[in-house]
């Protein structure tokens, strides 16, 4: 009979092997891309459809609550979303709701390059600076944008920005994209955009927040991306390749040891003597 210390050492070794295999599994596709097939989920297809089905020149507001430390999980979503919006010629108002989001959006637009789509800052897109909105701020934004933001991210008055001339509340916005990283924040848009104004809303969030967004789909939130996997799917459905493809392969191979371990640990008691 093994002692508790021996059993602990054995379990630790088992975990170390699993994590080592996981690490190897993750590394292989990053060096040799495998191109594993991607299965498209309904929330992602609907997310894309909401953007694609808008008439050209529609105004999309992006409540941008990104976090730099969580970018690995969401970068594929963001890049594919911005490219899709630009592909369809929609106008965009980004309003930053977290401290990191101004840096994140500036960096991403350097990658996507709106000007390569014929976009001009101030006429086709605008970035509003960081403001700690919260739910009450979302309400205020929907009622009166200028009560929250008087200038854009560079300090230019909103009244001097052509895109913002006729937009001052939710009525000037055709679609809201809600980006958040605190799982329960999805309730904010349901309460402040969907219930009072019946505004179409789609959302982007972390993989772990997907189950919290799912109850509101598809009647209240018309589509959502949760995690980098959804970003990979959006890259596929929109035809805009990005970092999600390599990440998807690495994730699929990295999680394989865990799946095998879970299966093995459930089957083992039935086929042999349990230690």
């Amino acid at each position, binding site marked *: 009979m093994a002692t508790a210390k021996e059993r602990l050492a054995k379990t630790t070794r088992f975990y170390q092997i699993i994590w080592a295999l*996981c690490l190897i599994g993750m590394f292989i596709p990053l060096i040799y891309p495998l191109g594993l097939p991607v299965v498209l989920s309904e929330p992602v297809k609907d997310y894309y459809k909401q953007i694609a089905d808008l008439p050209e020149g529609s105004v999309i507001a992006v409540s941008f609550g990104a976090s730099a430390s969580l970018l690995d999980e969401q970068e594929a979503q963001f890049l594919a979303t911005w490219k899709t919006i630009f592909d369809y010629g929609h106008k965009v108002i980004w309003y930053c709701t977290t401290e990191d989001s101004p840096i994140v959006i500036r960096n991403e637009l350097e990658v996507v390059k709106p000007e390569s789509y014929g976009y001009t800052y101030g006429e086709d897109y605008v970035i509003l600076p960081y403001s700690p909105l919260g*739910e009450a701020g979302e309400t205020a934004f929907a009622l009166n944008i200028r009560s929250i933001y008087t200038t854009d991210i560079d300090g230019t008055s909103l009244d001097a920005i052509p895109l913002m001339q006729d937009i001052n509340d939710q009525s000037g916005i055709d679609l809201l994209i809600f980006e958040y990283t605190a799982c329960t924040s999805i309730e904010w848009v*349901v*309460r402040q955009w969907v219930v009072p104004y019946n505004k179409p809303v789609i959302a982007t969030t972390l993989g772990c927040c997907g189950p919290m967004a799912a109850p509101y789909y598809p009647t209240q939130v018309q589509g959502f991306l949760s995690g980098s996997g959804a970003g990979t799917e959006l890259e596929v459905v929109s035809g805009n390749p990005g970092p999600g493809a390599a*990440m998807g392969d690495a994730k699929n191979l990295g999680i394989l040891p865990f799946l095998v371990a879970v299966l093995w640990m459930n089957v083992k008691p039935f086929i042999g003597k349990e230690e």
Partner: protein
Amino acid sequence: MASVIGGLIGTLFIIATMSMLWKDNVFFRFGQAAIMGASVAHYTFMNFQSVHTNAIMPIMAGNVMFIIPVILGLLMYSRLSADLAWLAKYPTSVLVGVGTGVMIAGTLRGQIIDQIKQTILDAFTGLNGILIFIGVVTAFSFFIFTREHTGALGTSVKIGRVFLMISLGANFSGELVWYLTQMIGRLMYILNEFIWPLLGA
């Protein structure tokens, strides 16, 4: 060369932070302190800038109403003094009051009435709808603690427990995949920002 050095610094911080997996060590503490310090500096600056743009500038422009939120905000700091801590109750009350007022109407319709309506309507649309309906009802029954879980309620509770476990399992797998993604992202960073540029690939 500059990008390789930047990649090297980033890689060193990643390795320093992850060295905690081996054991607590001076490199981990250095990495942790550097990241915390940079984060605090960034967040402090951004929030000062936000207060400046959203409150100070309007006050300077003659909109004196903005003095009220500034005073309420400053009262939050009264917690730093034991004698004046009670003053922080005023801004807290305003926050709770506004928060409750803003959310209550939307909660009733968006999260209770509409959710119940949709769950019932979906039950007539196919197998998924029926499963969700059964899951919702039985999972709710699990939280009835004023009656003993026997008979029909007991059966419902057992089924509800299965749905709850499936739900928690799905959440847990989401967490695991999320951690893996963060790890993959850092591996991609090391490869793309340091190793490949270093090798000239």
